[in-house]
């Protein structure tokens, strides 16, 4: 492992260098207790100790709305539209990196999603070790507490003025030395980074799964037919899709088209969709495969707890806790639901 030590005063110089070539996004406080990734400028205050950024980072690689094709309705011709601005996400927490790694696998499998891939290739990711744990987060229980790939650099703040920076890619290392030579990290600094990780891990033990996450697929599968449970839980579901839309691993989209005002050209675009919305599983002829809110509600937990696992061998949930927060009915907490199921059937033979 190659690692360097970067001192706080060096960071500003590096940010200036980086922002000449790409758009840099950093975490910052946007409202009391709410953090977001915003475009870096000289006067922005970086929240190095943010607990969770309010919206998920998937918007940088899978925007809420994105053009895919432009077409000519007179000539019957069409061409691909691929937009991929060069960007750097500086300060991404491991659970969000894990989510992006998962998206990579899903979007690249079978037929590659070219729009996603282009954006992803132009996105540099600098990870950041957490200091605080959001009160809705439970990433420590779903194996999202650390990542070994998916970042170009991984930063750990080891003292008020210094960072221990692990190299994840050649691109990352190159960017680190852009503003002059940097110091190789010492063994003591590496140890400081390790202690910093252990410290946040200790904080994260408060909210976690009560069982080994790998049992989840089997658990939810056994509970699939427990209609009473799902109906009761979904009673106050508004079918608003908020839990889907804030989720860093939810990637479903709808495809729509719109003609221009002269009715000559048009565009085909995609837009975020969510399996909790009533029209999600509705097909031509009006049939809806999941017409009741409780069926959709169950589907989401099956998707996160089993279906993604069946594809990739990991849960479709990274425990960021955004859905817990976004749900006004307070019923979208995967940790709570999976723990409840575990408590109900752990003693079954």
């Amino acid at each position: 492992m190659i690692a360097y030590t970067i001192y706080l005063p060096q960071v500003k110089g590096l940010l200036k260098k980086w922002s000449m070539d790409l758009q840099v996004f950093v975490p910052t406080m946007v409202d009391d207790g709410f953090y977001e990734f915003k475009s870096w400028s000289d006067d922005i205050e970086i929240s190095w100790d943010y607990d969770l950024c309010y919206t998920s980072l998937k918007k940088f690689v899978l925007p809420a709305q994105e053009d895919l094709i432009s077409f000519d309705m007179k000539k019957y011709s069409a061409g691909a539209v691929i937009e991929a601005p060069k960007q750097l996400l500086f300060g991404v927490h491991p659970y969000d990196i894990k989510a992006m790694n998962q998206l990579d696998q899903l979007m690249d499998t079978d037929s590659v999603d070219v729009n996603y891939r282009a954006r992803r290739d132009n996105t540099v990711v600098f990870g950041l070790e957490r200091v605080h744990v959001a009160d809705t987060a439970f990433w420590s229980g779903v194996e999202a507490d650390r990542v070994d790939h998916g970042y170009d650099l991984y930063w750990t703040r080891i003292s008020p003025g210094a960072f221990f920076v692990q190299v994840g890619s050649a691109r990352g290392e190159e960017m680190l030395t852009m503003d002059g030579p940097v110091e190789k990290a010492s063994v003591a600094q590496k140890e400081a980074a390790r202690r910093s990780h252990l410290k946040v891990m200790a904080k994260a033990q408060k909210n976690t799964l009560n069982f080994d996450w790998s049992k989840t697929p089997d658990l939810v599968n056994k509970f699939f037919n427990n209609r009473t449970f799902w109906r009761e839980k979904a009673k106050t579901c508004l079918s608003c899709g908020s839990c889907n839309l804030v989720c860093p691993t939810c990637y479903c989209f709808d495809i729509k088209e719109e003609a221009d005002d002269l009715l000559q050209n048009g565009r085909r675009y995609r837009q975020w969709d969510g399996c909790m919305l009533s029209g999600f599983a509705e097909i031509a002829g009006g049939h809806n495969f999941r017409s009741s809110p409780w069926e959709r509600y169950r589907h989401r937990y099956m998707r996160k707890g089993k279906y993604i696992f069946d594809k990739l061998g990991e849960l479709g949930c990274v425990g960021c806790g955004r859905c817990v927060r976004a749900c006004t009915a307070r019923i979208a907490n995967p940790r709570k639901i999976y723990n409840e199921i575990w408590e109900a059937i752990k003693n079954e033979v």
Partner: protein
Amino acid sequence: MPAKPRVAFFDFAGCEGDQLQVANLEERLLDIVSHIEVVRFREIKTIKLDDYDIAFVEGSITRPEDEPRIKEIREKAQVLVALGACASIGGINCLKNFINENEYMATVYGDKGRWYSTYAARPLSAVVKVDMEIHGCPIDKNEFARAVKELLLGKIYRPPDYPVCVECKMAGNICRYEQGKLCLGIVTRAGCGACCVTEGSVCWGCRGLLPEANMDAAGQIMNEHGFSWLEAQDHLRLYFGYNGRL
């Protein structure tokens, strides 16, 4: 329908703000108008013809004499479009439906109240069949343009059937409930791009109740966030007044 459909605009009880939104399309209007013939639109031209294929109707039905007029429009038009909240859901005109008739007559017309005939406000669909609805108070001009283009391409525009929450999430807004505010976005039909929330306000529900709105849940959620049902009802009645589920 002819290659260049003839389009007419009508208004009942309303402020004509939706037609103003159409006029606000400005130069875009010229492109759109190249596919149609506008035969009646008093906000932008003086000509008034009685032969038309598509009728855009703004405003609510609030008087007995409105009924034969809207029925006649319905008979002449191949496609009748309800334009704006007053026409599509009854809108704020329905506030009076919760007040004693003598009281609102006296409030609005004073001692001349008996000169006017009026009854409970209702949307167009309560009287005639409506083919297409463009919601909002006022309507979103981009959505109007889109709906017109879809009509010209032989389709009926279907507004979103999901709540405003979806568009708030797409815009990256902080949920108003997290800020301790009462917001009707959780049960209101989207399509506006969550414009009011994005601009710092809350959702007022002008696009009407979601087809599948879970009102029991909404009431419970508002209550848990510190808003009694009575308080919430004042907000809900502002636009959802005609809805029987309130």
